[in-house]
């Protein structure tokens, strides 16, 4: 049952072949069997999940009209607030915090009858590309347990890739949905900025953060996208427009006559051989399906990584000022006579991990007077140039493509002491965030040298998210018929599994 797609599970539920309680229990059993090795979850809410499942079953029995994914289990990145359920953002500073409210994404999932099984591991406050920066230990890639699943939404990606959950939610500030999707052989989408409400999403970099869906197929991902997106008056940056028709696009999957732009700057040097090979093959597949492949030039993308690592730390140094030991979260050093400032400083030292401190200090530096124009100011201008490069490229092509990440999954510990090497993994995903547009990663096969998944990235203009699904579904179908079976059937069986 757990090996099916979410769409197939939904079909079985609708036909009464299974119940949401049975489906949820099967996934909870899978979590119990394999999560000791994968460590995708920080918190499993078995009781809450089964109660939600029971309620959906009752509503279905009464003949109520339900959403297409009602009763399907889901894994939620621990960056989204869920009332009464521990929410930490992977940080010790929030250990034990029980949010007194639901994020809008969680409210939408609940009203759609989606069963939230628990909270998944992540790099602390979404700062990282490997899940190794979690305050609670790393998540392991189900393809090879000595490797990282990517990050920051590594727990959500690993949960879907290891069949612990058919669907998951992540957040993507610089590639944190697309890169782990690539490294674990699943589909992940970062929707257009403002398409999914940020209310209750613990902020890292407010002008870049966006929550989005993970699934094992393009259609499953679209089904979740449609449920979680939409205007929210509680988020002033939420776009007040209808959700793009992503499910219809995923069902049609036609690229005949579609112009597809290959970004010159996001391939070649610095990209692992097997990654480039699978990418080139996928391009050929799209061409064979009738797409017109053109090359586009985006010269400012060479500076995107530098701009990102100024803008995101700058915004984070401001956003994380809220963790001040006063109203919620950790408080240490509160002894008689200690000043508020001393308690704050001691708490923030004890509660934040290395990478979070590094980014707060970098942001504090970039925003300080005397350096502001040279660093933060220049980065903002690069951002303008990147938006202009995209505008020119999208005048030549409906979607743009690149490899999602320059390499396949790397070993746990390999880059943890070399922040710059880690940052380079985001080189192909970051431009999307800086421009506020949308992007998808879907599996393009396995690299010959290491038999690990390679991600193919598709990008589309703001609020044209349906184009991702249109092109993605076409490529997925063609690759599937070439491979004969879904990519995840090639992953090794996890120990402890039945």
């Amino acid at each position: 049952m757990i090996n099916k797609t979410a769409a197939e599970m939904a079909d079985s539920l609708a036909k009464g072949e299974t119940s949401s309680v049975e489906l949820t229990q099967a996934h909870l059993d899978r979590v119990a069997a394999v999560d000791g090795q994968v460590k995708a979850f920080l918190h499993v809410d078995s009781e809450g999940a089964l109660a939600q499942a029971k309620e959906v079953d009752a509503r279905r029995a009464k003949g109520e009209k339900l959403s297409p994914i009602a009763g399907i289990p889901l894994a939620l990145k621990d960056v989204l607030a869920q009332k009464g359920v521990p929410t930490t953002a992977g940080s010790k500073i929030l250990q034990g915090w029980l949010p007194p409210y639901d994020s809008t994404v969680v409210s939408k999932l609940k009203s759609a009858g989606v069963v939230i099984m628990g909270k998944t591991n992540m790099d602390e406050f979404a700062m990282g590309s490997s899940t190794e920066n979690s305050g609670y230990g790393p998540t392991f890639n189900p393809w090879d347990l000595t490797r990282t699943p990517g990050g920051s939404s590594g727990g959500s990606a690993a949960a879907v890739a290891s069949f612990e959950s058919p669907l998951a939610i992540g957040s993507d500030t610089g590639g944190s949905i697309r890169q782990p999707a690539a490294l674990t052989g699943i589909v992940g989408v970062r929707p257009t900025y403002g398409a999914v409400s940020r209310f209750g999403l613990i902020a890292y970099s407010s002008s870049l953060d966006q929550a989005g869906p993970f699934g094992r197929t393009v259609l499953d991902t679209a089904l979740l996208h449609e449920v979680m997106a939409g205007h929210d008056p509680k988020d002033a940056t939420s776009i007040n427009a209808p959700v793009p028709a992503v499910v219809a696009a995923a069902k049609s999957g036609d690229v005949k006559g579609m112009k597809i732009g290959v970004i010159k700057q996001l391939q070649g040097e610095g990209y692992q051989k097997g990654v480039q090979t699978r990418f080139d093959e996928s391009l050929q597949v799209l061409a064979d399906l009738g797409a017109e492949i053109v090359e586009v030039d985006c010269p400012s993308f060479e500076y995107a990584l530098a701009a990102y690592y100024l803008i995101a730390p700058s915004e984070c140094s401001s956003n994380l000022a809220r963790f001040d030991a006063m109203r919620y979260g950790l408080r240490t050093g509160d002894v008689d006579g200690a000043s508020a400032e001393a308690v704050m400083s001691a708490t923030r030292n004890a509660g934040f991990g290395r990478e979070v401190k590094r980014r707060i200090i970098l942001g504090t530096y970039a925003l300080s007077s005397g350096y502001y124009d040279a660093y933060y100011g220049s980065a903002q201008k690069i951002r303008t140039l990147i938006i202009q490069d995209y505008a020119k490229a999208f005048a030549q092509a409906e979607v743009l493509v690149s490899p999602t990440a320059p390499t396949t999954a790397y070993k746990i510990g390999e880059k943890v002491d070399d922040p710059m090497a880690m940052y380079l993994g985001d080189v192909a995903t970051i431009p999307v965030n800086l421009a506020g547009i949308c992007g998808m990663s879907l599996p393009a096969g396995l690299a010959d040298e290491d038999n690990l998944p390679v991600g193919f990235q598709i990008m589309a203009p703001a609020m044209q998210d349906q184009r991702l699904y249109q092109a993605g579904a076409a490529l997925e179908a063609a690759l599937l018929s070439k491979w004969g079976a879904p990519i995840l059937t090639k992953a090794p069986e996890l120990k402890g599994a039945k």
Partner: protein
Amino acid sequence: MSSLSRDDVAKLAGLARIEMTEAELVELSSQFGMILDAVARVQEMDLSGVKATSHPQPLENIARPDVVQPSLSPEDALSGAPAQEESRFRVPQILGEAE
């Protein structure tokens, strides 16, 4: 090669209200040169006449009617408080330093 001394990092940590250990200050100071060199690439391009973008959307003020709506109860609002007293957050001394 850019660099940031241990004392520079200590000053920034003070501004950011993070009481770092000596080992952390030394480590960060040794990593900072490399990170600053990498991000300083934003200064390589000719950016004269380029406008700055702070946000991907054209933002405007959004107002809503001033209507009373449900909000958190005092109990809920205080539910995560590290310390509380008489339905209020209890915080360390803020005005006037203790020493």
